[in-house]
């Protein structure tokens, strides 16, 4: 497969040739420089708007995209609305890829958003045809740019800076359109592009190709649409050819998406394939039915009150209609498409010790970065769960079942010693390091409330690692005494195994349930049961020694190992409180107040006695 670097080295000479060619053309036709300058300004304006919306929305855009995309129609609508407002399908794509990487939305929803986003990009055509061509630059564009420069001088918050960027962006976009329009009008005197108009399907194919190439070069279908509309409004191109150019812009944008996806993760690549399939099918439908669509546009234009000779707005209507038809045609097959997408770009050789969710694309937003860390910490816990159960010589399936715990401890996992160090090095150490490294990177762009959550997650990670380390220490004597002849010490170690098995089972229930009362009950129970390991206070050790049931050496081992069991349990309970109570749930808000403190735990233990 060709890598992104190969593509870059392949395209580099072409780009240099294009630049040289452009400079030569500029020498021949100085008016072209006005048009090109207009395009450049348009692209700069879009960049400003994109970064402005990113700072201004302050998580609102992400929240909306996360919450209102659970069904395909909702996902399409959100993709449409978000792109139409933000005027940037690339920003929406970045957010959606990061959501997918962080496991916040399903692939079906993500594909839906991308379809809707494609429809949302048609808003640019309306913006250009309705406002852009009529707007007086001195009246709107310039004041907008001035406002955008002045606002951050007095208002320093990120939100105001975002609003300022949106003002500058919109102003520069209108300025760009103004220059393009002026350039085309002046160019007409020397070079009339309309003379190259072509009729019939040959003309359609040629202009589709021109539109595609232009979009690939400019890397923005919105900019291509702006050029087409201004050229059409100034009479530089024929209406029929403009329609074909618009189809070409849609097709060309898939190349941009595919090129962009080469450096993306597998989720980005899957979405790029979905985007590609959607645009190719939409393009084919539009080409095949171009004459019928033109008639439909003429018919609808009369209904919505667009003048017969307002070709710019008719083109915007055409652009919207054929994208809408694309959405209607492809959406019924979204399940099949997603099934296919799930079979491609599957990473080879999945390793338990390698991160599954820590993708740099998730670093774009604090919410997705945090979500990735939560998912990866859960992955770390899954690995730790396996190691701890193996270390305690328990079978994972038994721990997770409803089997009586007395039976669970009798059904041994193996008769051999398990090298916990080896498991730790392969499944925990590297993954833990990656989570901490990713967290440090994520922290750079996080607001304080997220940093607080991140800090707790780091503690949860440390608790998991400590629990595994504790199991390693516990394992040595556990093997010795559970296979030995002294029934009394064996019973004590089996009690430790049983207690930890119960805790692991309860944490699994907590992780899977949404019922707050169950979570509170199990966490409280776990806190009470931890105290069983305090064998000095509860008199167990004293009784065993006094009656001569265990040797001094056994007593020392039991005392130390009970301490390990106590620490492992405490670590796992603290971890579960952080990791398995959903950040957004009601319980998270009141858990700290309802959580049992040490005094209450001791009171309940006393009551039970």
């Amino acid at each position: 497969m060709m890598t992104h670097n190969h593509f870059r080295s392949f395209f580099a000479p072409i780009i240099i040739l294009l630049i040289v060619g452009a400079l030569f053309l500029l020498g021949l036709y100085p008016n072209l420089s006005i048009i090109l300058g207009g395009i450049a300004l348009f692209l700069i304006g879009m960049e400003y708007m994109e970064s402005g919306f990113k700072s201004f929305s302050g998580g609102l855009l992400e929240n909306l995209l996360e919450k209102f995309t659970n069904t395909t129609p909702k996902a399409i609508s959100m993709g449409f609305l978000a792109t139409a407002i933000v005027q940037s399908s690339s920003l929406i794509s970045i957010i959606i890829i990061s959501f997918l990487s962080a496991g916040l939305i399903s692939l079906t929803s993500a594909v839906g958003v991308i379809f809707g986003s494609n429809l949302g990009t048609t808003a640019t055509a309306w913006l250009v045809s309705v406002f852009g061509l009529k707007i007086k630059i001195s009246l709107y564009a310039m004041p907008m740019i001035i406002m955008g420069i002045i606002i951050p001088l007095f208002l320093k918050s990120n939100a105001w800076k975002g609003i300022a960027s949106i003002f500058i962006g919109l102003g520069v976009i209108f300025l760009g359109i103004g220059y393009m329009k002026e350039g085309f009008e002046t160019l007409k005197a020397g070079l009339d592009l309309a003379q190259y108009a072509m009729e019939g399907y040959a003309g359609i194919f040629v202009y589709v190709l021109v539109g595609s190439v232009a979009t690939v070069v400019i890397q923005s279908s919105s900019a291509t649409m702006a050029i087409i509309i201004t050229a059409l409004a100034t009479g530089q191109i024929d209406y029929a050819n403009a329609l074909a150019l618009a189809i070409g812009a849609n097709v060309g944008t898939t190349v941009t998406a595919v090129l962009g996806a080469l450096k993306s993760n597998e989720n980005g690549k899957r979405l790029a394939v979905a985007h590609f399939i959607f645009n190719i099918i939409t393009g084919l439908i539009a080409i095949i039915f171009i004459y019928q669509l033109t008639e439909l546009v003429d018919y609808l234009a009369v209904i919505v009150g667009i003048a017969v000779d307002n070709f710019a707005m008719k083109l915007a209507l055409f652009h919207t209609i054929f994208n809408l038809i694309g959405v209607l045609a492809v959406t019924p097959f979204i399940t099949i498409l997603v099934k296919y997408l799930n079979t491609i770009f599957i990473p080879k050789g999945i390793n338990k010790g390698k991160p599954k969710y820590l993708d740099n694309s998730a670093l774009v937003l604090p919410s997705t970065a945090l979500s990735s860390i939560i998912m990866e910490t859960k992955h770390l816990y899954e690995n730790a769960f396996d190691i701890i159960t193996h270390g305690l010589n328990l079978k994972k399936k038994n721990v997770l079942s409803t089997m009586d715990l007395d039976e669970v401890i009798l059904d041994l996992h193996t008769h051999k010693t398990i090298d916990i160090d080896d498991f730790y090095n392969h499944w925990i150490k590297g993954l833990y390091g990656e989570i901490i490294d990713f967290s440090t990177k994520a922290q750079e762009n996080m607001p304080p409330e997220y940093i607080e959550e991140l800090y707790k997650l780091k503690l949860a990670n440390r608790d998991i690692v400590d629990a595994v380390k504790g199991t390693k220490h516990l394992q040595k004597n556990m093997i010795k005494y559970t296979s030995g002849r002294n029934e009394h010490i064996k019973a004590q170690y089996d009690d430790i195994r049983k207690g930890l098995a119960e805790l692991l089972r309860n944490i699994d229930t907590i992780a899977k349930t949404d019922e707050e009362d169950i979570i509170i009950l199990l966490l409280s129970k776990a806190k009470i049961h931890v105290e069983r390991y305090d064998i000095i206070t509860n008199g167990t050790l004293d009784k065993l020694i006094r009656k001569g049931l265990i040797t001094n050496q056994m007593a020392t081992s039991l005392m130390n190992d009970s301490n390990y069991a106590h620490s492992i349990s405490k670590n796992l309970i603290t971890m579960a409180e952080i990791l398995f109570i959903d950040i957004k749930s009601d319980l998270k808000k009141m858990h700290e107040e309802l959580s049992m403190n040490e005094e209450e735990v001791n009171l309940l233990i006393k009551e039970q006695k």
Partner: protein
Amino acid sequence: MSIKKFIESVISSLNLEEFEIKGKKKSIKRLLEKLELRKSILNKTTKKNLTKKEKKELKEELAIITLQIKKGNKLLDELNTKNSKNIQTKKDK
């Protein structure tokens, strides 16, 4: 006016602080209902057929639930007091 101050004044003028307290109160009430239901189910359990171990577990669960209900009610009272204080402060203004 900074955005933060603006948001704070919007929250205050729209009574959103109380809205937050109301939301929390609603969550606690819902949790208390669930706990009460669980408690009544446990209380109705016939202890005759239970083993010693099961009886111990039942007793423990009942003790935990009773304590949590007590804590929940206390929290609810605190929120009610906070809410009425907020209303009083607004009236005084």
